[in-house]
């Protein structure tokens, strides 16, 4: 048994300090010390887990907001729908995602998504599912709509679109949650002439080439 005695550094005689080395401590006690250090460090650094909707200022950095009740599970899967002769695939995954930047933030169970669009002639116009990007995917959610909290939404931020994004109202259409509708709403944004679509949008008053339907019903595959 190790007998601990409280010292301040100044109280330790120089002579005694010189013998404070591992050679004078039995091996089993060294292992015990290492175990204690490891355990205490592990306990201290253990990630705090909170329910998905927990809120509060005292939640420490790097906490984990976990989908304890599995409310996100119905969204998970590959969803398919038709739009103007095209076939839309949307793969949604539940991922423990780090929400934050520069190492500061919290982990959270989120629904991430990527899409695949197949034209009527069978050619593929977009396929991000094959290389699903779990760091910066095109779809991220699920959250409550600000103006109608019972309505769930997921954000759609297509690549190379001058940061143009949309919020999609996402609604299950049946009790079994095998069908869902998506309703597309543009988020406000700014644009300048450095955007390649500046003329299209601001001069010709056309839509961004988002290549995604404004409204669609998807069926779980």
């Amino acid at each position, binding site marked *: 048994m190790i007998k601990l005695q409280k010292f301040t550094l100044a109280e330790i005689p120089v002579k005694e300090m010189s013998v404070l080395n591992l050679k004078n401590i039995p091996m089993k006690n060294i292992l015990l010390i290492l175990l204690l250090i490891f355990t205490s460090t592990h306990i201290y650094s253990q990630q705090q887990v909170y329910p998905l909707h*927990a809120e509060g200022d005292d939640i420490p950095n790097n906490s984990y907001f976990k989908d304890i009740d599995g409310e996100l599970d119905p969204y998970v899967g590959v969803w398919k729908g038709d739009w103007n002769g095209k076939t839309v695939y949307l793969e949604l995954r539940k991922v423990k995602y780090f929400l934050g*930047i520069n190492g500061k933030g919290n982990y*959270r169970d*989120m629904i991430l998504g990527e899409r695949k669009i197949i034209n009527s002639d069978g050619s593929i116009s977009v396929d991000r599912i094959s290389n699903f990007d779990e760091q910066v995917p095109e779809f991220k959610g699920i959250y409550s709509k600000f*103006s109608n909290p019972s309505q769930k939404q997921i954000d759609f931020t297509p690549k190379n679109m001058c940061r143009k994004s949309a919020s999609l109202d996402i609604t299950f259409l049946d009790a079994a949650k095998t069908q869902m509708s998506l309703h597309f709403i543009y988020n*406000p944004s*700014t644009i300048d002439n450095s955007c390649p679509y500046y003329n299209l949008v601001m001069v010709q008053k056309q839509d961004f080439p988002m290549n995604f339907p404004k409204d669609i019903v998807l069926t779980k595959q």
Partner: protein
Amino acid sequence: MRKRILVRLSLALVVIFTFCSCRTDDFSNYTNNPDDQFQNRKFSVLTRKQVENIGGLIEKVQNVENNMIKENGADSFLKINQDSLLQGTLIKKDSVLLIESNGNETYTFKISRSSGSYAVENLVLRKNADGSFTGVLMKYDLTKSEREIIGLGHSLDLTNKVQVFPIENLDMQARIVSQTSGCYTVTWETGICASGQHSYGQPCDLVGEDRAGVSQIISVSNKCTGAAVSDISVDTDDNPNAGGGLDTGVWGVGGDGELLNNTPCSIIKQQNNGVYKDKIKYLKTKTGDAREYGFRVSKATTVLGVQYQELSNAVGTNTIEFKFFNTTYGAIHTHFETLVPVFSPDDVNSFIGLLKNAYNNNIPLEEVFLTLVNPDGTVYQLRGDGIDVANLEIFSDTAIDILNSTYKNDTKYNLTKANQSSEYYQAQFLKFMRDYMNIPGAKFYSIDSDDKATEIYLSGNTRKRNECP
């Protein structure tokens, strides 16, 4: 105390007087021996009561106020001779600089402008022999540190910082300046905005090809002997004998006895008049539309100083055009009903962009602001005080994408929680900004319907208020 102030002012005047001539190449001639510049001049600061006792002066100023200061709105037709130079100005009569020289009296009034112009502006009136007044508007584009330098009584090279605007209806009949240096008095025609060279409301350029015409020296006399040393006599002015120049200086920067008070609060207070207020009023009528509206705010080349340009909108895509010009330093925009009634990550990034733009174009950083008008009636403004812009970076597209997700999804901040008080959104936004988009020196203001501004800040995680005086 007053004597010291006047001594400081005198030193500042060393560099100012020369610019009454719209010339820069004469500058070096008059700065070698500052004492010579002022040996024949007497400086006084007049109170309002003293101003009222000077025959005709206060009446002239009131005449300017009543008939010439241009106004927008229903009552504007009541004013005759409205002068675009004076649009939205407020002439301050409590602290007026009087400079007496060779029997001439020049009165310098501080001017504030409702458009929120940050330049130092003065109305300078010279009393003519016949009792009439000649007037010009002097505009000094100075940074905060430059104002401090002048306020402390140090000399400052004002090249390209001074603009002179003759006021038509103030009977600017003479453009003659006399300058005494030692025994010698040099008299010359200034060429200020000579006829046909500059349209009304445009300043004289001090340098470059477009500057006012080359000054013509009229005479050089030795005042010690009274003899004319030379008489070049190139008299281009209709009435050279009415000359004598305008003795004035930068009035209203601190060295005149006022405290330097260019705090964000004082700037907001000045801003909440006139044109800016009209824009806010207009935008408040637009928050019911399902799209954003806004104005880009830029420095203008005219005397009005500020240009508000409504941002065009691609309605179907909810996109507004927002390009920074090298004169842009502010923006006002709306949020509509379905948006969180506080700044978004994109808004904060735009504020950083405005700061960087101002920094890169030598616009005083304390001028930079971003205003948000919300459907719930709240009006917020981000503005800076001592921000280290050189070490500030605009967030990348990827970072903003993640920050937008954090803003919407992280329930620790819960910014998208509906039906909360404005205080809730203020506090949660400040926590979010502190943790993810911190801009040291940036301040967040709430401006109520009575135009009262209050700084909202965090102490720990507690929201605090600090009302502007």
